[in-house]
């Protein structure tokens, strides 16, 4: 077939009428010629016409042949099937509606989850050649970021000496949100600024939307202060004004030049600190940070042709030779390095949960398909006469299956359209959940890949739920089925058996889903129940700005005054200040007991909180031994420290720790108290060592005022802000935020998964209930006659009900039994996602079994009642 013919055929397909008319005219003319000739040879007009028609061989057949030769016959028959399908579905509107809705929800959930998986796991990072980027951190770090990061000296040495990376950069990850104030225009406003190594954006391959990146001069000591703005911040704060580039803004009362604006596509938070927004970037002045300890997490770009393994091998050689600080010759040999793909760092942790989620929606679609298969089989019963008729009229088996598959496809496509709508809504919602601590969430959307997935899922679903009924229906013996239906009963014992099998498998699938959801839900509840070491409820925190001129005595006086005034606010039960809060900051220092010898690398660092008196009460922490800080712990008095239980137990295992001397930062300090362990960076993991130093003796990095009060945050905020402004008129308008928000943020990924899996399980349960209801209800209808006879013979309504219910229960028991067995296997697969919950958790299993049993009973009870109300006379007369 050449191209010209294809085009011609397609054209002819759309111009059916004119072509038919042309053919008819041609056939008429042909017959006229023939008749004329026949008469000429001497036939009677009647006979001449008859002969002509015989020789022509059937006008209708010829017209069909003509159509086939000129048009697209396969498309014709598809259109025919479609027309027929629409007609049948219109006749059976409620069925079509239920089917399309179920498919819509099933496909929608699948496409939405696929989009999430695609956005987070499958799609490359939104950076230039992202597969060449690597994340470098300590392989042995045990206590938070400080032990995973590198000092300026280590960074510089590694950058110079390595041969595997074409570029090494890093950023300062110890930043807390709202760390700079935009001043100079009325009230100071708090924003988040990240300090990055000068070549950060060049290494990642991010080009500024406006202006330029940092110059070398801007990364020098006493260089001109420069800042790059993030796109959303530029839009929001400067109304997208391009003239801002090159002008000066005031950050913490210092003039800083805006050198550029980053592109919309670059979102630092979504890649490196999910759930947090970053407003601007300033260059790291390396010379200023040399003595700060470990400050950078490192990111590198592999040279072309260099593999991750090669880079790791080289790092293994280089790392032990790096100095923590070149000023101290013995500060060498503490570093290790783990080099992994940046993508792996960003979303590797989510791999398993996302795959579980993917499987869960797959299950949902399976249940939807089984349910639809069931509905189609029920319809098949009432349509078997129609199909017998068509088959008697000459439709082949393939033709009938094709017809049925067309129906399934039409349903699936309609479902896919609704599903896409649902998926769009879900992904649009998710992409704007900025506070959800999942990386790359903003890039989640229904894209081309998701559309392709939709098509795949819809077609697979159509085949899945359409093939079984298709084969059953088309394979029926014509004779039996015509006879069978005339009786209106026993329409298929085997039919009923098949449908029961489907319901059982549906129940088993729902059971697995419910057990999975139950386990995850139980884990989640356990997690919320965890003893954090502090009481997040009724506590709130606000960032406080003060100017102490780097004078410890002045600082102490200011902080004391703030707390005195805040505590005076009605409704405030306790108030305290800390520079770091659990689940927020992440900084650790070395700590050891004075006079004891430790192996190299034996001691983990301790998380450091520099606090004022009142902090423990405000946070709701427990002092276990000794005393808390008081205002008598001054600059110049005996340096003191409080540690958590874990550190105390390790450092002074068999002694009373109170009064012992410890060493941190080269200073001797006396231990005065022991407090409860706090979950410092995650609810799921036990905290490490923690130490508390008084703000009057150590240098805090900022201040968070924590208050404890039964009053709601909204009621407290104005009076607290008023008080803070009365002390420091420059106090920026920071948010008073509930400590619970931090907890919420920390558990948000788990909550996200739990709520999705639970929603899927609920949907699965509903579908299973529908399935049971459909089958039992249908069997009652089928057996109306039989039930009528039984009742006429003296069966009571109760007996009939019990009979139907026991039929239901039989299905439920088999389904749940199979499901429970499968669940044991599945539960083991998700064991690593559970928190303090065994994969055999009896609560989840018992709950599932009870829930499914009750649902089955309820779904069976409605038809059972109907059965018990069958009027024997009507039922018998009906036949």
């Amino acid at each position, binding site marked *: 077939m*050449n191209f*010209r*013919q294809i085009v*011609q*055929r397609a054209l*002819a397909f759309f111009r059916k009428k004119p072509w038919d008319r*042309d*053919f008819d*005219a*041609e*056939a008429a*003319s*042909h017959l*006229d*010629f*023939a008749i*004329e*000739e026949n008469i000429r040879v001497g036939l009677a007009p009647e006979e001449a016409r008859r002969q002509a028609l015989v*020789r*022509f*061989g*059937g*006008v209708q*057949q*010829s017209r069909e*042949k*003509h159509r*086939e*030769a*000129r048009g697209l016959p396969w498309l014709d028959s598809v259109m025919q099937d479609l027309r027929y399908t629409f007609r049948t579905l219109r006749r059976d509107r409620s069925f079509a509606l239920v089917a399309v809705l179920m498919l819509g929800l099933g496909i929608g959930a699948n496409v939405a989850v696929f989009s999430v998986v695609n956005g987070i796991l499958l799609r490359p990072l939104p950076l230039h050649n992202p597969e060449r980027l690597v994340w470098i951190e300590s392989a042995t770090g045990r206590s938070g970021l400080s032990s995973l990061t590198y000092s300026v000296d280590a960074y510089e040495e590694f950058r110079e000496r390595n041969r595997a990376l074409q570029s090494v950069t890093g950023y300062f990850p110890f930043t807390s949100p709202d760390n700079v104030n935009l001043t100079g225009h009325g009230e100071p406003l708090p924003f988040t600024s990240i300090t990055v190594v000068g070549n950060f954006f060049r290494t990642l391959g991010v080009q500024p939307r406006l202006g330029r990146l940092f110059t070398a001069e801007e990364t020098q000591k006493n260089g001109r202060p420069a800042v790059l703005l993030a796109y959303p911040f530029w839009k929001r704060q400067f109304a997208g004004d391009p003239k801002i580039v090159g002008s000066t803004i005031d950050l913490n009362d210092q003039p800083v030049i805006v050198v550029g604006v980053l592109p919309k596509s670059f979102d630092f938070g979504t890649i490196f600190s999910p759930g947090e927004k970053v407003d601007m970037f300033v260059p790291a002045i390396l010379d200023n940070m040399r003595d700060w300890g470990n400050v950078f997490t490192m990111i590198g770009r592999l040279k072309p042709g260099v593999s991750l393994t090669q880079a790791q091998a080289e790092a293994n050689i280089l790392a032990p030779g790096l100095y923590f600080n070149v000023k101290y010759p013995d500060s060498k040999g503490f570093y290790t390095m783990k080099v992994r793909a940046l993508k792996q760092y960003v979303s590797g942790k989510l791999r398993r949960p996302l795959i579980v989620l993917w499987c869960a929606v797959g299950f949902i679609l399976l249940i939807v398909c089984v349910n639809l298969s069931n509905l189609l089989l029920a319809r098949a019963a009432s349509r078997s006469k129609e199909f017998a008729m068509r088959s008697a009229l000459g439709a082949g088996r393939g033709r009938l299956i094709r017809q049925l598959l067309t129906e399934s496809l039409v349903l699936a496509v309609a479902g896919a359209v609704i599903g896409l709508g649902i998926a769009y809504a879900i992904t649009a919602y998710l992409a704007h959940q900025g506070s959800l601590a999942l990386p790359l969430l903003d890039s989640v959307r229904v894209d081309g890949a998701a559309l392709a997935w939709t098509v795949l899922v819809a077609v697979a679903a159509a085949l899945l739920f359409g093939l079984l009924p298709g084969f059953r229906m088309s394979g029926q013996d014509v004779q039996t089925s015509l006879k069978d239906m005339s009786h209106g009963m026993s329409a298929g014992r085997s039919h009923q058996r098949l449908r029961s099998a489907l319901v059982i498998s549906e129940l088993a699938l729902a059971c697995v889903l419910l057990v999975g959801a139950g386990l995850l839900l139980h884990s989640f509840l356990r997690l919320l129940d965890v003893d954090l070491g502090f009481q997040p409820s009724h506590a709130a925190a606000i960032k406080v700005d003060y100017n102490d001129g780097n004078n410890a005595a002045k600082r102490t006086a200011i902080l004391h005054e703030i707390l005195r005034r805040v505590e005076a606010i009605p409704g405030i039960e306790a108030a305290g200040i800390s520079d770091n809060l659990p689940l927020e900051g992440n900084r650790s220092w070395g700590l050891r007991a004075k006079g004891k010898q430790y192996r190299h690398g034996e001691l983990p660092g301790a998380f450091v909180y520099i606090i004022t008196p009142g902090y423990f009460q405000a946070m709701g922490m427990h002092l276990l031994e000794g005393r808390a800080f008081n205002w008598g712990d001054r600059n110049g008095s005996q340096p003191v420290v409080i540690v958590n239980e874990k550190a105390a137990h390790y450092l002074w295992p068999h002694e009373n720790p109170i009064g012992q001397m410890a060493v941190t930062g080269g200073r001797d300090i006396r231990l005065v108290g022991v407090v409860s362990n706090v979950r410092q960076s995650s609810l799921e993991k036990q905290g490490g060592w923690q130490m508390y130093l008084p703000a009057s003796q150590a240098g805090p990095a900022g201040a968070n005022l924590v208050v404890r009060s039964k009053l709601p945050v909204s009621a407290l905020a104005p009076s607290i802000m008023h008080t803070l402004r009365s002390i420091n008129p420059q106090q920026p308008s920071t948010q008073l935020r509930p400590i619970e928000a931090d907890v919420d943020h920390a558990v948000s990924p788990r909550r996200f998964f739990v709520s999705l899996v639970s929603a899927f399980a609920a949907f699965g349960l509903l579908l299973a209930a529908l399935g049971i209801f459909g089958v039992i209800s249908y069997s009652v209808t089928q057996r109306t006659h039989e039930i009528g006879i039984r009742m006429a013979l003296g069966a009571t309504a109760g007996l009939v009900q019990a009979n139907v219910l026991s039929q239901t229960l039989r299905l439920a028991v088999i389904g749940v039994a199979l499901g429970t067995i499968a669940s044991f296997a599945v539960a083991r697969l998700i064991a690593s996602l559970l928190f303090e919950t065994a994969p055999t958790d009896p609560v989840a299993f018992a709950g599932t079994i009870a829930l499914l049993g009750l649902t089955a009973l309820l779904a069976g009870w409605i038809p059972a009642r109907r059965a018990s109300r069958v009027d024997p006379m009507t039922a018998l007369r009906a036949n």
Partner: protein
Amino acid sequence: MCHTVAMSQEKLDLLQGTLDVMVLQTLAVMGAQHGYGIARRIEQVSGNQVLLNQGTIYASLVRLQQRGWISAAWGTSDNNRKAKFYALTKAGRKQLATETAHWERLSGVMGRVLGMQREEAES
């Protein structure tokens, strides 16, 4: 009934290519001609050995027309009847040459092959 359908389909498959060549050749010899004329001519030439439902010629004609090998136009016959006249196009003439060569080669080969079989059976 099923068998008849299958058989006639088989026959048509056999005829499909051949009928197209016959139509092309007829038009090449006769010049512009209408469907009835072509059908009659084929019947006459083949000595009524081709059992042709005359109606099927129109499927062949529309196929050839779509391929651009023949052109069609309504016109009037000698005895003043409206009829659709078909004529060979340049492309059609080329195609006919190709087809003719193909058929001659094929029939030559077939003749030789069948002849060889008979000899072998005899020896």
